[in-house]
């Protein structure tokens, strides 16, 4: 059993929580003194930092939101003076104006440590050759994994994203043992590797994939196509970047590094904290971060925390794969639909005639929502026969209805007719004007 930081990763809960309390008091005080937005919210609640004694007082504290990052763009939420900020990252976000995050030297250290813990817990270390195919630059993916990989003493190939043919050639030539990228790009690479028939030339054993939601079915397909074990890593720019949490070798949820990030699960409607183990919106408080700390930041990710001790010996709670974001959720004819649920169903049919490429189109015609899903048919499936296509459409429609509780019109379309991207996939088109 290998740990990157055994002391912290296996710390008894009681000790860990005492430490969290101590750091929370410190963090609330600094934020109150240095961050106008936070101070105003505390004042509105009539709350002073002195009233916060430990993690039991967390629910008293005000939330923070993605909107804050836009309202106080670019540097308004920084709690450290600019002379201490050594790095800037940014996230474009899917909705408009980008957000900016600032890191002190110590923040970069914390971040690399978080990523290093994840890489170590999936069995990587010195002697491994890690190809980082996340985008480098303002996006946290590339440099985040890069920092972790360097820290554990692996050999890093700073590949960045794009140019699939070159990616595969590099992997083969340089004998990469691990790959880091988005899961949708890993799927795409897997498809290409299969198409080229070069799987046996790969030296890959593990993949660390994150930055977008993916399903267990997708994991199985990536693992089969690339001949690896695929692990999930989680993080967001607002909190620090990839390495907030990650799976260990047991692939049973992502350990949240609670000595830096306190997770809470709240009911997104009542905003009340929910007992550990319930499903709800994930909220983070960064207790060690200096540059841009976040108090009770609402991630919009819907998931569950598992407090059951993990076989790996780590004491940090595991977060289950977020199965959707509150802001990705579609409400169609009054029913909550997560694109990830649709993806899970479709991936179940990829052996039976479709490819993993799909697009959800929602529109409103005569005050009624229309719900269409285009799915690319696989070339091998097509026989000169209407019935088999109709049958497959019917089967997918029935399965979707049973999972979603709402009917969708499924259309099989020609292969490669849905635009593919090498980064984040554009899976949902919502044309409704509400």
């Amino acid at each position, binding site marked *: 059993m290998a740990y990157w930081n055994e002391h912290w990763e296996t710390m008894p809960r009681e000790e860990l929580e005492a430490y969290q309390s101590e750091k929370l008091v410190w963090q609330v005080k600094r934020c109150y003194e240095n961050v106008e937005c936070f101070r105003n919210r505390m004042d509105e609640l009539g709350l002073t930092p002195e009233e916060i004694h430990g993690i039991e007082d967390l629910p008293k504290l005000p939330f923070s939101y993605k909107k804050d990052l836009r309202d106080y763009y670019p540097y308004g939420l920084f709690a450290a003076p600019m002379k201490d900020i050594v790095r800037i990252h940014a996230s474009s976000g899917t909705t408009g104006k980008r957000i900016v995050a600032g890191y002190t030297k110590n923040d970069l250290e914390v971040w690399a440590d978080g990523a290093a813990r994840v890489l170590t817990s999936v069995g990587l270390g010195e002697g491994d050759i890690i190809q980082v195919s996340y985008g480098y630059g303002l996006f946290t993916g590339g440099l985040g994994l890069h920092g972790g990989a360097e820290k554990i003493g692996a050999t890093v190939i700073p590949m960045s994203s794009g140019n699939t043919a070159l990616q595969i050639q590099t992997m083969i030539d340089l004998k990469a043992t691990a790959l880091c990228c988005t899961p949708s790009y890993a799927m795409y690479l897997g498809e290409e590797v299969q198409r080229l028939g070069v799987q046996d030339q790969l030296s890959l054993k593990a993949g660390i994939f994150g930055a977008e939601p993916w399903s267990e079915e997708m994991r199985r397909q990536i693992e089969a196509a690339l001949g690896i074990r695929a692990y999930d890593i989680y993080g967001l720019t607002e909190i620090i970047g990839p390495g907030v949490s990650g799976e260990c070798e047991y692939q049973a949820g992502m350990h949240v590094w609670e000595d830096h990030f306190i997770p809470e699960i709240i009911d997104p409607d009542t905003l009340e904290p929910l007992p550990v183990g319930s499903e709800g919106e994930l909220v983070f408080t960064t207790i060690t971060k200096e540059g841009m700390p976040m108090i009770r930041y609402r991630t919009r990710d819907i998931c569950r925390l598992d407090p059951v001790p993990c076989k790996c010996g780590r004491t940090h709670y595991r977060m289950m794969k977020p199965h959707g974001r509150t802001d990705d959720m579609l409400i169609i004819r009054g029913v909550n639909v997560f694109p990830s649920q649709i993806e899970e169903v479709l991936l179940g049919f990829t052996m039976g005639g479709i490819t993993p490429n799909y697009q959800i189109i929602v529109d409103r015609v005569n005050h009624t929502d229309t719900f269409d899903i285009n799915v690319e*048919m696989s*070339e091998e499936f*097509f*026989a*000169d*026969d*209407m019935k088999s*296509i*109709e049958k497959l*459409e019917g089967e997918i429609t029935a399965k979707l209805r049973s999972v979603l509780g709402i009917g969708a019109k499924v*259309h*099989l*379309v*020609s*292969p*490669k*007719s849905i635009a593919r991207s090498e980064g984040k996939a554009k899976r949902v088109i919502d044309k409704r004007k509400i």
Partner: protein
Amino acid sequence: MFATQLSVFVENKTGRLSEILNAFSEHHINIRALSIAENSEFGILRLIVKETERAYDILKREGFIVKKTEVISLPLEDKPGALAKIVDKLSEEGVGIEYLYAFVSPENGANVVFRLDNPEKGGKLFK
């Protein structure tokens, strides 16, 4: 007798059919017979052309799903009951018809194209 037909998957998206026809006209592919099976969602375009291989490659290049299908093409005598005679013979021998369509060729007049569930047996009947 035996002929190779191209079956093309066509989503019911306006313009898909004309894309095919334009590609053929551009590359001087001569369509001899054509039929479309469709529902409200999609269709299958069935084609018999002079240069099957070349047409197949063109369609592939244009990104269509194409399959080559073996069919039987028979000239039809120009008198009442000619088609009934063929269909009867097939059914007597227990050969099922998946679909059929007709076309006229300049050389031998009316022709019928059959897709049979047992093409080999069906083929022998019309030697």
